């Protein structure tokens, strides 16, 4: 066991380079996405690579990304993946959402539920978190792929948005933009940049999302149907060269974040702690920081972050965090693997 700050950790799955997402199977074993294009099944101390994955476009921040099980797994045996894909016309790739089933050590019955377009060779901003809400709707994020002026504010284009489908990939009858001229029907909210954290509040059922800002201006937002989160017209970040981001056209309906991080922490991974094993963390958020290499504990009062604490300082780039069915918090750290957060004594 290693000690970092007031929390210790135990390395439970070693040697994973980019553990982008993870999901526990009913037998307690773990499925972990390795961004370079591997799905790893960790069971009783051994790793198996799951075969028959879709073709993954490995480029910059893109690759095999998130994984979620259907809320009624295994009675409903679908597994959901987000990944960068070259499918379709044009060079490059974009975010795709697939559902499939696990048959022993390979995927079967693969179905692409959504494929964003157009393909591009840009390496940034694939978004790609997946959650199910309490009604069983499937939500996923797609980043703006480096095209801030073209994608996030345009409902006719993919990117910079949060999407909602039914679990079998259909358009919900009450999605917000079904009437809009040329609007993509799967869109649920827009005006976002690169959203790598999404979690359902255990009491309110609302979906919270965080996103990378440019230089400064990382945000936490609460998802509203049809909401415009303002990127790039409303932001607290600057360009990387220090200049202001100044576009006309901000409107009062653009939704402000409930929390901003400046300087950026580069957030990835997000979970609400409900486990009684962590009394000090229970009811609050855990968010990974890629840039500063720690796990952030955000103490909540309603919809406000009232205090921030650093856990596991210096552990490495924190990419993902989940609460396991056993009540422990598991953290995916780049260049390391999956660690279990040991509760304070």
């Amino acid at each position, binding site marked *: 066991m290693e000690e970092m700050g007031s929390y210790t950790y135990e390395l439970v799955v070693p040697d994973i380079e980019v553990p982008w997402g993870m999901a526990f199977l009913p037998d307690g074993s773990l499925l972990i996405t390795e961004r370079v294009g591997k799905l790893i099944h960790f069971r009783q101390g051994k790793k198996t690579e799951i075969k028959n994955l879709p073709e993954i476009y490995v480029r910059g921040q893109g690759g095999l990304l998130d994984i979620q099980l259907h809320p009624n797994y295994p009675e409903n045996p679908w597994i959901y993946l987000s990944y960068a894909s070259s499918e379709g016309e044009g060079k490059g790739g974009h975010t795709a959402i697939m559902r499939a089933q696990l048959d022993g050590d390979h995927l079967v019955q693969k179905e692409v539920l959504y494929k964003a377009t157009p393909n591009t060779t840009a*390496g940034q901003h694939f978004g790609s978190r997946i959650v199910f809400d309490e009604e069983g709707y499937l939500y996923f994020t797609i980043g703006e792929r*480096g095209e801030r002026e073209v994608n996030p504010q345009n409902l006719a284009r993919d990117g910079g948005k949060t999407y909602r489908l039914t679990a079998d990939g259909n358009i919900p009858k009450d999605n917000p933009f079904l009437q809009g001229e040329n609007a993509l029907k799967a869109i649920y909210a827009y005006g976002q940049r690169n959203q790598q954290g999404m979690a359902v509040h255990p009491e309110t059922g609302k979906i919270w999302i965080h996103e990378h800002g440019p230089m400064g201006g990382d945000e936490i937002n609460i998802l509203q149907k049809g909401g415009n989160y303002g990127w790039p017209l409303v932001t607290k970040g600057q360009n990387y060269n220090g200049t202001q981001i100044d576009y006309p056209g901000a409107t009062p309906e653009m939704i402000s974040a409930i929390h901003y991080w400046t300087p950026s922490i580069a957030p990835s991974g997000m979970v609400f702690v409900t486990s009684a094993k962590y009394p000090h963390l229970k009811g609050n958020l855990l968010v990974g920081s890629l840039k500063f290499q720690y796990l952030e504990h955000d103490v909540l009062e309603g919809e406000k972050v009232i205090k921030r604490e650093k856990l596991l300082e210096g552990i490495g780039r924190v990419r993902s965090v989940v609460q396991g069915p056993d009540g422990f918090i598991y953290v995916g750290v780049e260049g390391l693997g999956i660690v279990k957060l040991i509760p304070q004594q």
Partner: protein
Amino acid sequence: MKIKISIAVLFLFCSCKNQDKQAEGLFSPAEKEVEQISSSPENFSPGKKVYTNFCVQCHLPNGEGIPNIYPPLANSDWLTEKRKESIHAVKYGLRGEIQVNGKTYNNIMLPLGLSDQEIADVMNYVMNSWGNTQQKPVTVEEVSAIDE
């Protein structure tokens, strides 16, 4: 019937045009600018395009990096003295502790999914920017020859 078809065709034509208008986005020139990046040598060399897409988020536009987190590329002794390691880093990633200009960095840079041509381009851009001077250009052959 003929009139109805003509009107239908007219509507189709109109909605396609609207689609184009929508696809132009808020700021029409910008989309075209992105596509033409590599054909404006004075603004965007191929290497600078790679840098802007894959490197700037951490190393920042003038190669300054972020103290204690991401090492600088501008006037970096690691870049100057370790040519092969530098190319290897961009090609395969870099992990663990390194010393750059007397400061320790302990972070991880993952492989970026660049082609050998893109790696050569971005190396040449970085090695000729922000006060860096390059004695010998990096070639695609040199990049290809570097094994993991």
